[in-house]
């Protein structure tokens, strides 16, 4: 089953990847091979196999509801490319009307 170029573009957008035409071609081939592999797996009868929720046989890892102060703000913002008024500054995300 070969992915269409539209499907590859959609996945690239969701992953925020900017692919060149050559990379897109390669991704289409590789992703299609992966999907083919899953098609093969689908032939197995899993009717009696419970879904794997987690790979560890552990449940209920919880902490008591106790708070402690956050990090100092200078530290929080020190690696931010830009900040203003104690907040992270990014290019505008909601377009103007």
């Amino acid at each position, binding site marked *: 089953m070969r992915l269409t170029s539209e499907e590859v573009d959609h996945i690239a957008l969701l992953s925020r990847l900017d692919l060149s035409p050559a990379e897109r071609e390669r991704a289409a081939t590789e992703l299609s091979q992966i999907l083919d592999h899953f098609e093969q797996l689908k032939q197995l009868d899993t009717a009696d196999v419970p879904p794997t*929720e987690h790979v560890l046989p552990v449940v209920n890892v*919880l902490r008591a509801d106790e708070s402690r102060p956050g990090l100092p703000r200078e530290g929080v913002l020190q690696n931010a490319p830009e900040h203003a*008024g104690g907040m992270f500054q*990014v290019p505008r995300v909601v377009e103007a009307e």
Partner: protein
Amino acid sequence: MSKYEIVIGMEVHAELLTQSKQFCACPNEAVAPPNTNVCPVCLGFPGSLPVLNAKSVDLSLRTVLAFDSKINTRCIFERKNYFYPDLPKAYQVSQRLLPLGEGGFIDIDVPNGDGTSTVKRVGLHDVHMEEDTGKSQHGESIGDPDSSLIDFNRSGIPLLEIVSLPDMRSVEEAEAYMTALRQLLLYLEVSDCKMELGRLRFEASLSLRPWGQEEYGTRVEVKNLNSMKAVRDSLRAEIERQTRILDSGGVVVQQTMLWDEASGTTQPMRSKEQAHDYRYFPEPDLVPLDIDSAWLERVRASMPELPRAKNQRFIEQLGLSSYEAGVLTSSREIAEYYEAALEGYTKSDGGAAKAISNWVCNELLGRVNAQNSSIAEAKVLPAQLRELVQLIDAGTISGKIAKEIFDEMFTSGRDAKSIVEERGLTQMSDTTELEAICEKVIAANPKAVEDYRGGKEKSFGALVGGVMKETKGRANPALVNELLKKALTQ
């Protein structure tokens, strides 16, 4: 009547009343200086690991128990993937395949328009646990049209999302749903429900369909609703907009609209993030929850009496009217105040529940509401109100004087007894003393006496008024009636 049937569903996000966040120990506070309640976990730093807050699971369980939802005692968290600057990990931890609660319902009171209401059951799709995102401000509001600013204090605050079925058929039903849900969450003490702080957030989805049509019309989501009024107004505006489109033969486009309070219209949300393809998958950093019956029972035992049950009990066991029961159970604080005032008080004629109800509903809440205050802040404590009513019951003071005393109690918080003593307001129940006053009033009002003896019952009231005036309202009214009648028939 409109040509179209209105179909409304609601998505509600409630921030839970915990000390700390869902997956880290940062404080869960609605108001704090930007980016001060943050740590590597809620900032999404690589290598940090989330650990679930036990209290938040308890609060969520309390809620699904109240909704009578089917509880998935084994449930898992999943990642909902999307890119947005206020989501530092680029995924939100949420639940989809195995949410904590599935199904369930909320009973709402839909007003009939004549003061009465009808109970309607609104079904729920599911109730799931997740984490809140950060908060962003955009463009002009921050003085820079090209930037957005992000504060991550809200990132990771425990959130419960309650998704209804599209069961509501009018704006009034949507309002009744919000009122009932808010009341329930407040009773359960799972959220403080402060809409103005975004602690409780409503999103509506609305579609129209011609009457009789089976399938739903195209639904439009309405967001940016930070008050009950905004929900009401935006739904009305959106109904009008969709009606106009359908009337002119157009097609409603499936989209998200933002309510614009200033213009009173809904506007399409335009976001660079259009591709809504969340690619949920099980969160490998969190192991499943396995809630055993002991855990469930512990939570069940922590639940208060719910507003509907309380309302029913007030009517059936205390003999209150449905109006009174409605007022007294409208909030948990009022109900608890009422019950505390009533505690241990039995009236000779059995009307204690009614008497206390009158004082709470009329005198106390009247004054509290006039001050835009809350019953929790009232200076008069439940036991003090009970003492006042007991003084009336014992005949120490008259009902009329009691209201004056209550005024003083409400402003100063003093005890009724000390006010009565200080002002000498004790009711006069001394027969000899009152007889003398009655004689005096009869002698001073020959005309009224003559009219009364001539059959004018009304004149009797003037004579009672005379006695009350003489005693500055302190005379025991029942005794005055009796003594006057006796004196007049002699």
